């Protein structure tokens, strides 16, 4: 855990392996969030819904 990180370089880009893994993980989470089913209320329930356009 105390060893220096491995780095990947391509032209001017120099990034550590943990950093690129975090970015890839964030991308996966974002895509999953777009498509994962979200629990909705039963139709017919009423109440203040806040403002919207």
């Amino acid at each position: 855990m105390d060893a220096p990180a491995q780095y990947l370089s391509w032209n001017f880009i120099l990034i550590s392996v943990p950093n690129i893994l975090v970015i890839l993980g964030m991308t996966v989470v974002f895509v999953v969030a777009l498509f994962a089913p979200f629990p909705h209320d039963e139709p017919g329930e009423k109440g203040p819904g806040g403002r919207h356009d």
Partner: protein
Amino acid sequence: MTDRNPAVDTESGNWTLAIRRWLERQLPLDSLLPHRMPYYVGSWVYVFGVVAIAALIWIVASGVVLVFFGPQWWHVSAVGHFVNSLHFWAVQLFFIFMVLHLWGQYFMASWRDGRAPTWIIGVVIFAISVGTAFTGYLSQQNFDAQWIAVNAKDATNAAGIGAFFNVLNFGQMYGIHVMIFPILVIALVALHIVLVRIRGVVKPIEPAGSASGAEEASK
């Protein structure tokens, strides 16, 4: 109940009353604390912002504990090391979910329909958070922090602000980190949320083929 008709309101010179009336019009409680959202808000993408806020609460709570006990404690004691780690990892989660929230709002063009101030405040929060994280790294009281300080001194001098911000001045960096920037971040996050409540969550972008989509595209 006080008569709200301005024509018969005999206390029209009262500033407190005027402010209260304005707040009641702009921020009625069922808009400030709605218990239901429009159907389109039912997506996990809308959860990122509030997770970032939850991380911010952890940051502030662990930060208060660190301030109270000080650098000696957070390096030497096991509990101090743990709270220090809580603070560090809460910061990582805060940035991860703030950036995910930014990606979502950018691709949804959430500045539409009068929401530009909300977007701008979000960008400012992001910029101040970067500064807060930087001053936090400087405040670690270890060799890492010393190395960062020496290199950042070159950077701030090159940027022309070296006369105002001395990264080798621990008191200045620590004070900015524990007081000035947290006050700004918390105040701006609160304003950001109130603006979202005032305007509501922006509608999704309409498909190009629909009538309202054509209207959207012509704006």
